[in-house]
């Protein structure tokens, strides 16, 4: 028998120029379902005006990021069991630091512009993915294989970053991590883009990005590694190594 829980889904609502408020939906759920399933059922059976973003339902598209009980989650892979208990209230809100389009849906424009600025890689050779899961010794000729990059461009890291909250111009975790992945040695133009006030030096090491990233990117580590790249490149310049 599948387990049944009764929960109250408390959903952030905001249409047009309205102020943010919350609507409660009482519902029966299977605790092994995902938070996104509950949100989708609200739309399907309870309130057809609810707006939210989603697409793949298995953590490849990065569309379903929301704050679940205050913390950034990819709702399509967050089991209800992991974030609440039977009889409790589960609060879902839109991501922070993004303009709200309606209810739970946010506008990704500014963020994707920054990903474009650093020419973030969408696909990369399998051998350049830093950590593989499982750690397998793939056959020798694997360099020919391409894979989609780890970063889903979901924006959870931007939402969780306390620096991004106060500085809209700050490039932010995912774009800086993407710059590190491309590497200044491969694209020297990146030096000017990240070595500035709103770039790699803006980070205050709160490590919130890594805490919420659902996809192994570990942006905080990559930001630190990018600082090393930047210093290396500048030292190189200083000593005339092109």
């Amino acid at each position, binding site marked *: 028998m599948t387990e049944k829980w009764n929960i109250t889904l408390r959903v952030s609502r*905001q249409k047009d120029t309205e102020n*943010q408020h919350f609507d409660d939906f009482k519902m029966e759920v299977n605790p092994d379902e995902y938070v996104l399933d509950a949100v989708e059922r609200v739309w399907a059976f309870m309130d057809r005006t609810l707006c939210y973003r989603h697409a793949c339902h298995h953590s490849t598209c990065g569309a379903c990021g929301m*704050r679940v009980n*205050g*913390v*950034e989650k990819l709702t399509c892979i967050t089991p209800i069991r992991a974030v609440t208990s039977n009889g409790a209230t589960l609060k879902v809100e*839109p991501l*922070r*630091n*993004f*303009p*709200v*389009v309606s209810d739970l849906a*946010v*506008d990704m424009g500014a963020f994707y512009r920054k990903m474009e600025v650093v020419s973030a890689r969408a696909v990369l050779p399998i051998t350049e993915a830093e950590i593989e899961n499982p750690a397998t010794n793939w056959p020798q000729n694997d360099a020919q294989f391409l894979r989609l990059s780890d970063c889903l461009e979901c924006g959870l890291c931007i939402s*969780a970053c*306390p*620096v*991004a*909250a*106060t*500085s*809209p111009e700050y490039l932010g975790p995912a774009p800086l991590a993407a710059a590190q992945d491309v590497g200044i040695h491969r694209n020297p133009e990146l030096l000017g883009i990240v070595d500035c006030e709103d770039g790699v030096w803006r980070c*205050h*090491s*709160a*490590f*919130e990005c*890594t*805490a*919420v990233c659902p996809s192994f990117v*570990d942006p*905080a*580590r990559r930001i*630190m*590694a990018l*600082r*090393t790249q930047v210093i290396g490149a500048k030292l190189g310049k200083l000593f005339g190594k092109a």
Partner: protein
Amino acid sequence: MNNQPSANKFWAWFNPMGRQVGGWAFILNRITALGLTFYLFLHLIVLNQLAQGPAAYGGFIALTENPIVKLGELLVVAAAIMHGLNGIRIIFTSFGIGVTRQKELFYGFMVVALVAILFFAARMYMG
């Protein structure tokens, strides 16, 4: 549209809701840093007053026996210890040391900070 990041959100960094260990560490670091800076100014002003003469000096020394002022001093010491140790953690991670272990590093340094604070408290109140 609302919910945008903006320079007007002056206090947004201060909100501990929906943050995790690293975020709290950041908030703590900033609060202690501001506290220390505030203290530095206070300290300079007081020093300036003390230079007025022996009477002022004596009065001030008496003031330091006041338990509230003593507690204040302990807070400054505590803030300095926490900020300093946390600062060392940030310097480490900035050089790529312990980045993937930053949480443990933070807890470790804060345990050291607690021990140091208790040590100073004991000396201030008992010594």
